[in-house]
């Protein structure tokens, strides 16, 4: 069995099973766990929980005024690599075919050259994020191994994907296998670390919105 | 045989890149090699067969180089056409294979392409054959007399 066979076969299979199992476990667990709402009665004129939750989700998409100066880089850079990742993952034709193979869903892709450009920007943005994290004493203080591991496992697929398409460093099928294996690692770690925020951020922000709303606090 | 359709194809592809710029690159290399040859006497061969030249590229290159004073045809293991271009010392060598298809194509920078010259071993063999012929002729002449 070649490395590519291993990657496309058992590795991908195991990784996807772990990913689905873990992610469903955590989502179902989070949703069916007891919701510890604020025991006190809501203040008068408080927003309904649904609206408050929505507000919580959307308002947090941009920093509060007092933090705008200091948090601007984090926010902008965050947007860059999140959008970059979404474009690369969801609009590159080979990736679409991969998703189609799993789910049967299909949509048009973007030109590959454009994707390469976006991937380069995404990679640069991820590096900038890491440098920022390492240079900021506060961020250093609150960073765990989980943060670094999650960063690495996001960064590797981007880099290996770029290397594979540009045939740099090794033969294409080796690079492609490494790319797939890096995605496997990403998938395996995903449900258990901070990467899970991709699924959970909606609920956590919504929850914050509800709680703050009940207290009548401005988000 | 014509195949002209009643109407043009609805999804006509955009014009194919007929000229890729490869001809310019080859021409530049020819120029550099020729200069080198004129100075140092180092002959060179530029193999065109495996180059990604389009039909148009080839035609352009051939037109640029043009035809000079010498043209040679060889009949050995198929047909070959060789000509000196309008640049002295730059030769176009084209070998045809099975079915008169071009088998290889190259540009040689030399005083004469290798394949035109007679090989010493061939000349030795020819000398033997010629000597045999002379001997044969003389016996026949004597017998006739």
């Amino acid at each position, binding site marked *: 069995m070649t490395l590519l066979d291993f990657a496309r076969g058992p590795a991908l299979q195991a990784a996807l099973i772990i990913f*689905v199992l873990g992610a469903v476990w955590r989502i179902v*667990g989070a949703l069916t766990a007891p919701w510890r709402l604020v025991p006190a009665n809501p203040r008068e004129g408080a927003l309904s929980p649904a609206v408050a939750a929505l507000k919580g989700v959307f308002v947090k998409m941009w920093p509060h005024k007092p933090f705008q100066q200091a948090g601007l880089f984090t926010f902008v850079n965050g947007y860059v690599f999140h959008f970059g990742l979404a474009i690369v993952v969801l609009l590159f034709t080979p990736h679409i075919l*991969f998703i189609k193979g799993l789910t049967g869903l299909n949509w048009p892709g973007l030109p590959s050259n454009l994707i390469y450009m976006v991937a380069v920007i995404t990679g640069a943005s991820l590096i900038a994020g890491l440098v920022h994290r390492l240079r900021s004493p506060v961020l250093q203080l609150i960073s765990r191994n989980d943060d670094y591991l999650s960063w690495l496992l996001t960064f590797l697929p981007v880099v290996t994907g770029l290397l594979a398409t540009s045939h740099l460093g090794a033969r294409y099928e080796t690079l492609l296998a490494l790319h797939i294996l890096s995605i496997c690692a990403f998938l395996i770690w995903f449900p258990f670390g901070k990467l899970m925020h991709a699924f959970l951020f909606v609920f956590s922000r919504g929850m914050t919105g509800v709680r703050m709303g009940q207290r009548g606090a401005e988000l | 045989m014509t195949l002209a359709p009643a109407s043009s194809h609805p999804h006509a592809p955009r014009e194919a890149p007929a000229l890729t710029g490869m001809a310019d690159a080859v021409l530049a290399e020819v120029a550099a090699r020729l200069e080198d040859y004129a100075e140092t006497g180092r002959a060179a061969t530029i193999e065109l067969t495996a180059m990604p030249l389009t039909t148009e590229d080839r035609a352009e290159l051939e037109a640029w180089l043009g035809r000079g004073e010498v043209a040679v045809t060889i009949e050995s293991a198929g047909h070959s056409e060789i000509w000196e271009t309008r640049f002295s010392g730059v030769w176009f060598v084209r070998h045809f294979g099975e079915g008169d298809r071009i*088998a290889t194509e190259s540009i040689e920078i030399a005083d004469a392409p290798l*394949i035109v010259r007679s090989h010493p071993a061939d000349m030795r063999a020819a000398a033997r054959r010629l000597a045999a012929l002379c001997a044969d002729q003389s016996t026949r002449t004597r017998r006739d007399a």
Partner: protein
Amino acid sequence: MQRSQTLGEILDSRGVSRRAFLKYASYVSALMALPAGSAAAMAEGLAAARRQSVIWLSFQECTGCTESLTRSFSPTLESLIFDFISLDYHHTLQAASGEAAEKARETAMAENKGKYIVVVDGAVSTKDGGLYSTIAGVANVDMLRASVKDALAVIAVGTCAAFGGIPKARPNPTGAAPVDEIVTDKPVINIPGCPPIPEAMAGVISYLVSFGKLPELDDLRRPKAFFGETIHDRCYRRPFYERGLFADGFDDAGARQGYCLYKVGCKGPVTYNSCATLKWNGGVSFPIQSGHGCLGCSEPDFWDQGGFYRPLSTSLRDLGPALAGAAVAGAALGAGAAWASRRHQAAYVKEQAASEGGKK
């Protein structure tokens, strides 16, 4: 038998000049992208060589490799077998049969001890003593071992001989194995393909005859001259791939405009071969040009790569049921965890209430 003449002497006696060698050599060196000046050296090598004795063994095969070799335009099979090599044993072409054929093989081996080349097409059945494929009552695996004993080198032509090919496809019913699994003490060159490009076979044989050494090989023992780049790298449809223009079917608008065949399963990106540059049958076409994706036929185990029409970026396995199972298991785990948590919380609240009640 008379002393065999050198190829140069044979040409002399036919009154043909050495230009024929030079022309032939310039073709092979262009084919194999040899450095400039190699043609002259190769021509000299050819002139000094004797007709190379070649023993061609056909095992678990379909004769497609031999058929392919007969389609070689330059060098042609005729020039190869009449001018450059002595094909001393070859089932499909040789005149003798039965005992006489086997004798021809043994004679060639004895007369060219240490100098002959063995070419093998077809896989070698190894299961149950190789009884699934025999010639003259002898199992292929035994005939191979005996034939290579005094060989100079072995060339495995076709994917079956090089990598096991279709007989080795799952579930490999006859225990088919590639040649280099059996022959471990001789140099082996693999020229895979189903079948291989004829010029690749003829080119490698010519190279061996004229230089008397092996061409540069990759890690799968394939000559780099022919297997150095992927089909995708040299495919004229590559620009469409880069522009994201793909055929979605075999006869849709994209297919008619010659868009990239990646979506319909083309294996060009992971297939090392010269189809896109040398093309087939005298440069007429190659599979992608004629509208079908590359099957990847010069790669090991290409039969078991998940399907000809499955895009390269998809998983090799059908994951639907496994993932559905994982989702159900995950949901159960999640619900279970939540239930445990609720019970834990209920017990805690009760405990709190009890302790508070106690205080009162």
